[in-house]
């Protein structure tokens, strides 16, 4: 966990016209670490994720990944360098099957050009088989076998979130940004999802930034926490320290489920 940070966010400022979404946010993420990003609704957590993936363009500030600056890159370039994310509202292709969606996630790793792929000889074919193997490993890890051939649009919410996670994994990321992966799930689904996240963390050794509201889960699984409120970082530290932090408790205004 020590050594060079994997991700450095420095003095991030993001404004939409008059509204300041992020004001001078800075933090670091180290390799093989789960960082929790928490705060009341509207604090700017998703804005941070969107800034990292360059979906939003911060007015000020610098973001570096593995020592190199990535501010100013386009989202597809961010995907190529090893950063993947899940979406709060699940951005999957509802007309495609689970398997197809996961294969789409392999897109960044596909080397064969359009011509080679359409002719599908030798090298392209072997590559496709390798991708399929990788995707099947993910299906096995996330227990998606039974719904492999189902259209994503026909799946219940909890299963779609799992597929979204699988799609992000298919990109073989070094950094995984999870945007409220447990939202809208019942106790059993949450337990399964947490188990998957921990399995992924242990097996693939990815670093994770977890945006989540379920304090019980967050306190349990993260190594460190960054707390936002109204676009500013109000606290940073280990779960034990944050639990008793006055500023944090006040920010949540009595909803201290910690």
């Amino acid at each position: 966990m020590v050594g060079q940070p994997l991700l450095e966010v420095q003095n991030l400022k993001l404004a939409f016209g008059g509204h300041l979404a992020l004001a001078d946010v800075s933090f670091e993420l180290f390799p093989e670490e789960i960082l929790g990003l928490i705060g009341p609704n509207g604090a700017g957590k998703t804005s941070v994720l969107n800034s990292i993936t360059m979906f939003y363009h911060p007015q000020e500030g610098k973001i570096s990944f593995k020592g190199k600056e990535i501010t100013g890159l386009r989202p597809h370039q961010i995907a190529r360098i090893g950063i993947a994310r899940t979406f709060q509202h699940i951005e999957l292709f509802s007309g495609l099957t689970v398997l197809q969606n996961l294969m789409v996630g392999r897109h960044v790793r596909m080397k064969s050009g359009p011509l080679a792929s359409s002719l599908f000889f030798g090298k392209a074919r072997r590559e496709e088989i390798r991708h399929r193997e990788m995707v099947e490993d993910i299906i096995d890890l996330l227990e998606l076998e039974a719904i492999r051939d189902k259209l994503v649009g026909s799946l219940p919410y909890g299963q779609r979130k799992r597929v979204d996670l699988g799609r992000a994994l298919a990109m073989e990321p070094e950094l995984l940004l999870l945007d409220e992966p447990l939202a809208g799930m019942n106790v059993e689904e949450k337990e399964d999802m947490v188990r998957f996240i921990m399995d992924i963390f242990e097996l693939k050794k990815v670093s994770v930034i977890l945006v989540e509201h379920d304090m019980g889960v967050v306190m349990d699984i993260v190594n460190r926490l960054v707390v936002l409120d109204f676009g500013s970082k109000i606290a940073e530290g280990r779960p034990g320290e944050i639990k008793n932090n006055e500023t944090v408790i006040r920010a949540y205004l009595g909803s201290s489920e910690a």
Partner: protein
Amino acid sequence: MAAPQTLPQFFLENCRRYGDRIAMREKDRGVWKRYTWRDYYERVKNLSLFLVKMGLGRGDKVAVIGENTPEIYWTEMAVQAAGGALVGIFSDCNPEEVKFFVNHADATFIFAHDQEQVDKVLEAKDDMPQLKKAVYWDPKGLWNYQDPLLISIEEALALGLSYSEEHPDYFEKLVSDGRADDIAVIIFTSGTTGRPKAAMISQAGLISSARGFSEVDGYGPQDNYLSFVPVAWITEQLLGVAGSILSGFVVNFPESAETVNENIRELGASILFFSPRQWESINRMIQSKILDTSWLKKKVYHFCLPVGLKVADLRLERKNIGTGLKFLHWLSQWLALRNLRDNLGLKFLRVGYTAGSAVSPDILRFFQAVGVNIKQIYGSSEMGLVTAHRDGEIRPETSGRPLPGVEVSLSEEGEILVKNPGMCVGYYKDDQAFARKFRDGWYCSGDYGYIDEEGHLIVVDRMDDLRSLGRGRKFSPQYPEVRLRFSPYIKEVLVVGDEKHNYPCCLVNIDLDNVGRWAETNRIAYTTLADLSQKPEVLELIRKEIWKINKTLPEEARLVKFLNMVKEFDADEAELTRTRKLRRSFLEERYRELIEALYSGQDELEVKTSIEYRDGRKGTMTRRVKICTI
């Protein structure tokens, strides 16, 4: 070499004879992986030598807990090759139960499938000091586990391999030391009454019962069997394990519990075993899909099914089928029935078995009408296989005639008595209880029934479950229960009645999926099972279903009142056994208030039920339950 008398000896013979033929398949990562008899041999040999090296002695027991995978079969052969016995534990047992089974059977090793099962073992490990090793085979989630008790199957096989290189023919010697009276498996009986008992079944017992099966329905190496019934169940031992070793058919393993039906279709399985619940749920699914489908499809189905039923009935009575009907039957097959079978994955099914608790004759007739060769068998962990339907004599009401070598008779009270050379040899550590089961050399099955003119056995109910109504009339609650479950809207039902009252009543668990769908079609809004079950429209729906069955019952056995339960009967709360049989006495005691209310003339009752959540927390739920007259 002498003629084989143990399963491992038959196994070696198969490996020599079949070598490169496929013995098993497993669907892994979307692809069907194959194991030849040679592959099977290598793994069994290495696993067996590993166990011996770790201290497994002849007569020792090895427990297994997990979903059906090839590893379980390898383990069983490996253990038996070394002269040990396999103890199967149901995969949904909790750590307390695991501890009980392991300790009662004195198991010194346990094979636990994956993280879920390993966690249970580790939780109870301090109370199971005799365990030498816990072997797992699905490493997902176990990468960081450090416990010295654990070892992966990969490591175990590697250790066994190195041992086999040092002692080249040791495995063959182990196998040849096997005797017919070695205990092969320990099966814990279902425990509907009191704690489960450990029935010990010898090699000879397994082999003779498996032979019985083959004689009724000859199998061969070209047959495909899908293994998903737990090895803790006697049927999987007889049909799956012993059956595959004796007949050489291919054992296929599904990808996961949820994909079983899909896998059956992909394989074109030719031999299957489903419990009556599973056949019921297939039937229920068909019925509910028909309810949901277009007008045209409904009409076609309702035309073809009666034709199928008529033909099945005539065939049973060995009467001639007229040309007109033959044509209609051909048409029905072509229009609907054959596709229905294909859709269910049963197109290549040569024989489908059912057993375990009473089956509604309507279910048997239904599947025969659709063209599925479904047969009843009767037996138990203790008795082995007793009766089975032969081709051409599949009468829906009966369980068939006794197998060759098996004798069946009735006691004065109507209890079924059995003499079977293939039966179990005793209860482990409980000789007294076992001796109590015998009277004049006959084994008392505990089941009530009778034998008809053609020698077919009809099993009515457990002796202990028979109830008397007022005026001393005996009645069997299972009889109407089984028929009521034929309705797609009724998932589970408990029929009650005793001498204090003159008529039976029932407590119904509605089928949430099907009733929910019905409610949606009829624009009835609902939230939970508790809410849906008390809606007046739903009560009326269930009332009509019960009324339909009532008509077929003799007058004194007709149900008079019923109520819909606000929560389902649950095995985790010990209301059902792990094989989903009702634990009648327990339920009658637990819901005494409800039962009294049924007879008291009240219209409704406020109930507080205590619930146990999956993670062990407890809660209570208060609800008003309505009582209705049929």
